């Protein structure tokens, strides 16, 4: 594996940072998801401004994927020593590549699940527009989607945690 990757002549640290960056990409999905939900929320609030608080809660739900991405990115940065006082540790190219691989679940699942969750949240916001008492159900529908982001977060985390330097 080393020989193939060294073709590109990048260092192990580079791959580790690429991993951190990939994990943080989950924020793309959150931004899109919150955007979708926000459009629906504005529509409902235009009918009844009193529902602002309720729909805001629903709008916030697709935001967690971005946080999960941040979380994995942060753990990677800690692991390679970029955030500690002692500077970056030396890692081999394959170790770096492992970290990159570990970042993929949350990076990819984060993007797509947050978009899907944004759509579910938007539908939940419409539900609250018609039946304000059903807020909890709208929240649960959106949270059903989040399960898969949670699972991806776990896998990414467990992978990074078990990579030894």
């Amino acid at each position, binding site marked *: 594996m080393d020989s193939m990757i060294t073709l590109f002549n990048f260092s192990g640290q580079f791959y580790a940072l690429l991993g951190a960056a990939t994990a943080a990409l989950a924020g793309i999905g959150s931004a899109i998801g919150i955007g979708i939900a926000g459009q629906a929320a504005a529509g409902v609030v235009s009918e009844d401004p009193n529902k602002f608080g309720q729909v805001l809660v629903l709008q916030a739900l697709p935001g967690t994927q971005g*946080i999960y991405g941040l*979380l994995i990115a942060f753990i990677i940065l800690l692991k390679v020593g970029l955030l500690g006082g002692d500077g970056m540790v030396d890692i081999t190219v394959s170790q770096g590549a492992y970290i990159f691989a570990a970042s993929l679940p949350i990076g990819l699942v984060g993007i797509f699940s947050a978009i899907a969750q944004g759509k579910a949240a938007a539908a939940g916001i419409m539900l609250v527009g018609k039946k304000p008492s059903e807020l909890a*159900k709208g929240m649960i529908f959106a*949270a059903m989607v989040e399960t898969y982001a949670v*699972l991806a977060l*776990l896998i990414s985390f467990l992978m990074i*945690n078990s990579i030894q330097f």
Partner: protein
Amino acid sequence: MAIVNISKLSVIGLNENKADILKAIMDLGVIEINNQESKLTDEDWSGLIEKDGDEESVYSMDIKLSEVSAALEALNKYYKGKKPLIKTRKPVKKEEFETFEKEAEGVYETVKNVNSIYKHISYLKSEENRLNTAVISLKPWLKYDVPLEMNGTKYTDIFIGSLPIAVEYESVVAAVNEASDKACLYKVSEDEKDRYISVISIKEHSEGVKDALRKKGFSPIVFEDVIGKAAENTAKFQEQIEEIKKQISSEEEKLYSLSEYTEKIEYYYDLIAIKRDGAAVLSNIVKTKTSFYFDGWCPKEKEGEVKALLDEKGCYYEFKAPEKGEQTPVLLRESALAEPFEAITELYSTPNSNELDPTPFLAPFYFLFFGLMLSDAGYGIILTVGCFILLKKFRLEGMFKKLVKMFMYCGISTFFWGVMFGGYFGDFIPVAAKSVLGIDITINPLWFNPTEEPMTLLVFSLILGGIHLFVGMGLKAYMLIRNGQVVDAVCDIFLWYILLIGLVLFGVGGSFSPALTEIGKYMSIVGAVGILVTGGRDKKGIGKITGGLGSLYGITSYLSDVLSYSRLLALGLATGVVAQVINTLGSLAGGGVKGAIVMIVAFIIGHTFNMAINVLGSFVHSSRLQYVEFFGKFFEGGGTIFNPFRRKTKYVDIIKEEK
């Protein structure tokens, strides 16, 4: 601690006491009166009875209510005092409320007064708008020294209008000159869009001039209802606007002073609402010439009070236990500790009257799960203290009160798990001590640090999940046995218990003792074969075999259910690590005063955000574990909540004196 027993109640009384009896029942507030529509078409009844009802007064009181709420809304806009953060019902003693009833008519006058003033203000505001528009439209003509209504002399026509500024003025002049040698035009003014002109032309040529102008984009302007010069009119209008403004502020002043009656008007609203409900309930009562009949539901424990009341009023009545399987309204009663968690059940669905109330069973798990997900001692203290203050400061009621109380309890659990895992605003204390003060402090978790040993917490989460699911299945078995379906309980629940426990022993029992693996193996086989054989017992022919296979395949759903509890770890990590990120950001400015200030700012903003988002996350995901995984095992829901005929008030809470 569960669903309260409800009895069926039928009552016959004399019409002459009806109003009195209904008022007493409303005061008592423990009887739900059913709709009697079916009796009216029932052959046994229809010849004897007719529908009671007083729709006219319901209608007139509905109108009154909308008048009152319009007045309240108007006053609310002009209320000067400080509004409370949370609007709660004001406790009022029954006697006090009854005294108020006597002065009620006067309040209605105030309501009408408020509404007419408010209507007048709206009228004045639209007048003001109209005049402002007129002033704006006159603005280009201020320098035009001819009365606006003047459209000609004996031999000439005069007309005014606008030309787009994009059209060159010289070309317009040329066009007019070409059309007539006895016409001329004056430029009055121009703004960024249009040029305003006045044209005078001899009568014979005016059509030709107009045509020429139209080709250049001229649009004529005619002022209706304006006599005199623009400048004079503008001055006049402005004077009127000033006058209207004065009137508006004097009317508004009146509303300000009337806003002290807000409370009285709120009382009045509730008074009318009570009367309305009293009249509306009549449509659920049937009557003969001299007597009336209604039936409904009453909690069994209140039977004594109801009997005493009905005896006193001379009614005939009958209590019956509901028939087996009959759906009755549902009244929940919990122990003090479980009560706030009723909110979680209610947000999902009211249980139906034939099943268990899940609240006492979900409460401990909800408490535990919420704490595990938030797991920060600092956040726990803030949550508990914050909710405690809310409860002390405001007289909360209903669902909101339950939720606040529930979060208060969950804060305790959050604190507990925070201490176990060593989270105090994440790692704030060691980080702050190191970067600002330059000393090393380590706070050791009481149990372990989940960031370092995530597998331990993952296993712990899955075990908790397994227990949660087993409790849910146990409740299902209990309900099946209670309904006499012992075979179903054995086949659908106990065989699964054997299989699932067997599989776990087979998988991990070996690390304790090899014998456990062996036991697990046989348990699994017994369970699996049992499920395979009994799974299709309700089906015929080939269905018996496929049904068994189908049931056994259901094992995948148990796998996904248990894995779902891994979110306990994931959300716990999310809180802890994001808190760590915030603290790291805060420490970037280093030590000294500057560093401390940066740290504090990062702390306040960052932790507020993190706590808000994670409290929301913990709430949603703890609920999800109850709704999808736990309720999926046994809970049906779909009941209707017990809704007795009582005083339903919006602004005041009428308190009966304790005898």
